[in-house]
């Protein structure tokens, strides 16, 4: 029994890691309806920036997270400026929603992600970076029969804060209002005086800042910071987003947890090499049988 409980807890913490990445990813998709392939690299950049700060100044974790958030937000704005904005040449509805733009930005963000990953690799090498071990978030905490680490609590807390903060920003600030407006109807928002370009930049700032924070947190959690670190969480976040109905952030978070738990639980029955199959199977099943996401509520975006 303890064994199953322990696997469940591991699955939960795995799911929380995916959820952390999925929040920013889903925000950007939900607003713009574009896939940001470079989100995984923003995550990696967050981890490397955090690592540099730790190595150079060794400040408290909170300070690092804030700096990483800021750097991530700037990266996001830059990313938007170079990979997304040029394709919104016209601000009519056809352009904002066109498939051509979606696919062009998918490719442009992919191209930038190659540049970013190769750049990091060139600069730092492709190996795991050595991280001062004292900064790692993996001190075990025993709760009854199961063991968790302090990082689990921090990641849970951060995810919670992000979700709550995001809800607050979206519901109670003017930036949030314009983000929601652009998400619903970019052209309409523009007609009523919302600065679409600035709002989209804000969206990228918020989403990428969150992605970067996820990067450093997960980096510290596993003690593994390396240029290709963004790929797997990126794909899992993607799957979570699709399962959750594409534009629903709480949906994506719940689905991330489901994926994490399923992966850990699957290793009870089969060899862990098949673990990745779980997420992909979920993806395909969702797409084929629940095209609106497993909660069904969200609007279908086709």
């Amino acid at each position, binding site marked *: 029994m303890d*064994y199953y409980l*322990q*696997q469940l807890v*591991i*699955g939960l913490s*795995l799911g929380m890691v995916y959820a952390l990445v999925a929040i920013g990813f889903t925000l950007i998709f939900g607003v713009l309806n574009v896939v940001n392939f470079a989100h995984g690299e923003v995550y990696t950049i967050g981890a490397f920036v955090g690592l540099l700060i730790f190595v150079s100044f060794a400040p408290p974790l909170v300070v690092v997270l804030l700096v990483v958030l800021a750097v991530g937000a700037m990266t996001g704005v830059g990313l938007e400026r170079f990979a997304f904005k040029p394709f919104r040449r016209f601000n009519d509805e056809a352009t904002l929603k066109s498939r051509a733009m979606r696919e062009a930005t998918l490719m442009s963000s992919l191209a930038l992600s190659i540049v970013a990953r*190769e750049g990091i*690799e*060139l600069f730092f*090498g*492709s*190996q*795991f970076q*050595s*991280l001062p*071990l004292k900064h*790692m978030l*993996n001190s*075990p905490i*025993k709760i009854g029969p199961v*063991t968790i*680490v302090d990082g689990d609590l921090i990641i849970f807390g951060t995810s919670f804060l992000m979700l709550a903060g995001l809800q607050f920003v979206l519901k109670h600030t003017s930036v949030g209002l314009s983000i929601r407006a652009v998400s619903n109807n970019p052209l309409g928002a523009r007609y009523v005086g919302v600065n679409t370009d600035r709002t989209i930049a804000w969206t990228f700032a918020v989403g990428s800042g969150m992605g970067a924070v996820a990067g450093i947190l997960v980096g510290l959690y*596993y*003690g*593994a910071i*390396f240029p*290709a*670190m963004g790929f*797997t969480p990126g794909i899992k976040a993607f799957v979570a987003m699709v399962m959750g109905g594409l534009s629903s952030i709480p949906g994506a978070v719940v689905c991330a947890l489901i994926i994490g738990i399923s*992966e*850990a639980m699957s*290793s*009870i029955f089969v*060899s*862990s*090499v098949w*673990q*990745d199959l779980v997420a992909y199977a979920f993806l395909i099943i969702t797409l084929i049988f629940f095209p609106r996401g497993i909660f069904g509520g969200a609007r279908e975006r086709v």
Partner: protein
Amino acid sequence: MKNRRNILALGSALALATLPLPVYAQQPTYKIGYQLPLTGNTAQYGIDFKNAAEIALDQFAKAGKPFKVEIVFEDSRSDTKEGVAIARKFVDDKSIVGVLGDFTSGVSIASAQIYKEAGMPQLSQTASHPDYTKVSEWQFRNITTQAQEGPLNAEWLYASGYRKVAVIAEQTDWGQTVVSNFVDKFKALGGQVVFSEFFNRGLADFRPIITKIARDNPDAIYTGYFYEDGAQFLKQMKQLSVTIPVHSTSASYNQQLITLAGADAEGMKLTATFLPNNPAKNVQDFVAAWKAKTGQAEPGQFPAQAYDAVNIMLAALERAHPNVTRKSLRDQLAATKNFPGVTGDTTFDADREPAKKLVRAQVKNGTFVAVDQ
């Protein structure tokens, strides 16, 4: 509609063809090709090889031999496509008489097909795939395969009193041999393998596997991983308060393992062919040169492997001199006997496999030390 394609193909072919071909001086300079990953996911290994090779070449140049040797490094990115292109390139260059590399077995084997066809001796420092040396008589390797290491470890674990063992290894060609060779011998000795599983390389989270292993409560865990996965595994074992003794192979021998895992690496046992604190002069010379060149800590198993591979090649060249051809170099390589390398004495057997002496080591106080036998 294929017109443009051909014009471009012609254009790029011309562009490549008109590049200046090197002109060779009359003095005997032999060229060796080295294909290795200098970019991509495995670049860290390739860069280490390059450094080690340059140290070996440097020492050779200072030794005042009657001929010069040049090594041509080409980046394969651990990508088969690029590996075979490099192989063709080396084969084309008539002045290249022998080839070192590649890093992964896959790229080494795909390139080996070309070296086989062209008759070019190839010596890989790390290709451990059982089929690699079976490609042809032109393939050599300087790494002890698991056929040797596995049984040795099985005996060690059995002698330590362990009867129930869990085995995990990465899902690669190498990992497969780690498991099969160990398990066969361990069962033959009368031990029991209670758990055996593979994991995908670069897996961040080993906790589900560790929890599973802990449930089966083995006496020890035998692991086939490289240092990065190893560090993750050891850290997460400590995190879950699992204290089963861990044994590993020479592949995890790297100072970085201890840097990454810290105190969690304490106590891990492994077999190795190279220990930097071996007092032998050649080892100490290499370690000193390595530290001076790279500014890093002691070299790990793989750079030492590459250093020896280069020196074995150079020694074979020296024996073949002055009638150096690809064929004569191959024959001299095959004749390598008791070559005194930093990874121990190397002799190639009839299958062009090295026989090496493995030492038993352990992580103690943040460093690898030999275990008295």
